[in-house]
């Protein structure tokens, strides 16, 4: 099968899009939370996450917990998460979310208000929401 791809010229002419990944899935009840983080990793890999923002809401901040024993696909999370630490990715945590008692070592976080989330989404070129 021949796969036609958007031209290299198009790729070169366009700056890297600002990507926002919002994860609202509960990592203790759905594999989708870890899968969303894996997808975010893939989307940010071409420039070490420079144009990637990750917002965690609901119980998704538990993805950053230092205890992954209750997290579905926790082994996959443990395998991928060090890359975010290496990139210096700052995870935005919704202020009304639920938080773990302690975070994985080296993990960077910042609070984000619901109204600021709207602004962040509006400013993004690409938005992916996993709920």
């Amino acid at each position, binding site marked *: *099968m021949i796969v036609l791809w958007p031209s290299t010229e198009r790729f070169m002419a366009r700056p890297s899009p600002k990507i926002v990944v919002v994860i609202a899935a509960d990592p203790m009840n759905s594999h989708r939370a870890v*899968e969303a983080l894996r997808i975010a990793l893939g989307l940010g890999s*071409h420039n070490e996450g420079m144009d990637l923002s990750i917002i965690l809401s609901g119980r998704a901040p538990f993805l950053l917990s230092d205890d992954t024993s209750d997290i579905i696909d926790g082994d996959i999370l443990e395998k991928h998460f060090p890359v975010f630490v290496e990139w210096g990715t700052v995870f935005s945590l919704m202020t009304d979310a639920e938080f773990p008692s302690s975070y994985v070592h080296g993990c960077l976080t910042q609070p984000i208000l619901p109204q600021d989330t709207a602004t962040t989404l509006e400013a993004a070129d*690409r938005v992916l929401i996993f709920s």
Partner: protein
Amino acid sequence: MKKRSLGILLSTGPSSANLSTAVHLSGAALKAGVDVYVYLIDEGVLTVDDPCFQSLRNSGLKLFACAYGAQQHGVARKDDTATYCGLVILSNIVSTCDRFVAFN
């Protein structure tokens, strides 16, 4: 003039209404002369054999499926139904398409 392009990510399975939406959006875009790239991931790989997607491929749809997802969900890789690949391809779709829509 360059053709416009649309990227679509589908991460939900056959029982989700997202499938129908993605199929109809793809069909409409193809009819309008837009290049369409669909990437199936997570439970989305379970829709790879959907007759609607296979029909749209004959109209020019470029269909990709996450190789890791296919393995995780026990989907037999048949190279005549989609191109199985990694997240680098999704990253390229997100970066290069004029428009991108995610159905999760």
